[in-house]
């Protein structure tokens, strides 16, 4: 029978207990869908500090409440773990607005999801430890530890423990009575069995190392820091002002209408009349901002058979903007006495 030194024996028992707990916890975690999260930043401080380890459990969208801390992935694939400030649930999908406790503003994008990982537990500093577990050094230590345990389990012990003789090969746990004290050197069957076990141990140790290598891609729960700041400026659009429109009698029968730019940014002018509908003058404001136009009383637009008041309007324009109109009234008197008295326009 094998005797281990008391210290080693007790450590092995302790290791077995811890190992069993680890296995049970891992099993329970897998069944619940629990996910460890490493907090890389302090955006959830002080509730969850940098380097914390959190545990999240998936929950349905409708179970998510304001105030919960949930872990989601943003559109860039970065895992964000922040507190829910607004949650709208519709058709089993939640639209969440998240904000880090230490952030001054919520995350810019809302998250739409059917399931989220709710953080149910967090502990400070453990995240650093878990991050270390993913380091090459930890992998090496883990592999070495596994190899050692496999050696303890399957390797030869204290130079006196030997494997079963060949005839008992089928019964690995045949009890102490089944063991002999054969000389290893003289028992080729025992030697062969040892090499098989060693190969198995090496194989398992290698697998453990590969598995430990998988730890290297362990990824952190990323709680993003955000800070927002703003600048404001005031803009006022100007309003175009009507140009001044003045009327002066020109000669005996005509009138001259003069438009004066009001000093606004307008670049175009227009002189129109309502009835008859006609644009008398339009175009760019000339330098000096003064447009004079003489309206001839003999113009064919005037088809009135009796004295009529005609409204002239002056406008300023720029792009799609039009100013209010200035108006000026002009009285039209048709020709009389079979044309002996000509048509006449007079400023009203």
């Amino acid at each position, binding site marked *: 029978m094998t005797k281990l030194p008391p210290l080693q024996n007790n450590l092995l028992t302790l290791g077995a207990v811890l190992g069993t707990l680890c296995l049970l916890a891992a099993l329970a*975690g897998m069944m619940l869908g629990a996910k460890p999260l490493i907090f890389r930043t302090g955006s959830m401080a002080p509730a969850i500090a*940098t380097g914390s380890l959190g545990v999240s459990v998936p929950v349905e969208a409708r179970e998510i409440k304001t105030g919960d801390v949930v872990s989601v992935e943003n559109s860039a694939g970065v895992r964000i773990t922040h507190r829910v400030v607004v949650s709208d649930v519709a058709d089993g999908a939640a639209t969440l607005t998240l904000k880090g406790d230490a952030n001054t503003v919520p995350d810019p994008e809302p998250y739409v999801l059917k399931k989220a990982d709710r953080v149910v537990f967090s502990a400070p500093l453990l995240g650093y430890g878990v991050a270390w577990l993913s380091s090459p050094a930890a992998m090496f230590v883990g592999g070495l530890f596994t190899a050692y345990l496999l050696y*303890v389990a399957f390797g030869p012990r204290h130079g006196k423990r030997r494997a079963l003789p060949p005839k008992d090969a089928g019964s690995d746990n045949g009890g102490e009575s089944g063991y002999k004290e054969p000389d290893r050197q003289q028992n080729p069957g025992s030697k062969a069995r040892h090499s098989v076990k060693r190969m198995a141990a090496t194989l398992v140790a290698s697998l453990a190392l590969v*598995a430990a290598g998988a730890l290297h891609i362990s990824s952190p729960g990323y709680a993003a*820091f*955000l800070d927002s700041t*703003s600048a*404001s400026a005031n*803009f*006022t659009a100007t309003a175009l002002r009507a140009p001044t429109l003045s009327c002066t009698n020109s000669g005996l029968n005509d009138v001259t209408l003069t438009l004066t730019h009001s000093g606004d940014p307008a670049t175009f002018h227009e002189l129109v009349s309502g009835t008859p509908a006609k644009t008398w003058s339009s175009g760019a404001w000339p330098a000096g901002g003064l447009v004079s136009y003489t309206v001839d009383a003999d113009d064919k637009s005037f088809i009135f058979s009796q004295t009529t008041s005609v409204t002239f309007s002056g406008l300023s324009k720029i792009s799609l903007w039009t100013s209010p109109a200035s108006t000026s009234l002009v009285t039209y008197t048709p020709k009389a006495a079979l044309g002996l008295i000509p048509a006449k326009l007079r400023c009203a």
Partner: protein
Amino acid sequence: MATDRSIRIRALLAAGMVFGLGAVGTLAAWTDESTATATFSAGTLDLKLGTAPEGPFTDSMALTSLDMASMYPGASKAGMISVSNSGTVPLAYALAGTASGDLGAALTVSVFAGGAATNNASTGSCSGTLLGTADLPLAEALISSGRSLPAAGTESLCLLVKLPATAANSLQGATTTATFTFTGSMGS
């Protein structure tokens, strides 16, 4: 009594520690493979704005150099703003504008890095490097791909706000306050 079998079983159970601890990291990897390594940042993130590259910097400021009192179609105004990372970690910032009313919806912005702002009567210009697209509607994302700013770094931007020539007649006399929000985030 420590038999071979007992030792063997206990040793294998003890190996469960490696598995269990490994699972902690590996479980996370199964659900999220976006980041390969864990790095911790205990620093602070603090984005501030100022009118000059030397500061002073604040969290909220009136960019009066950009104010314009009598805009008309085609008018524009340029103004400089300094963005400062007053924290201890590098950050990436985005810029989004908001402005109320129809006038706010009509204004466009071009963002330039560096350079200087020049304004004559009612036309402004920026001499820096155009970031993204020119004449973006003011009330939307103006810088969407994060622009990185190292810790304690400062960057000058020139904002050129324009009322396009196509501005509707109904905008005459309208007033709006535009807000430019800079949001700094770490790492992403």
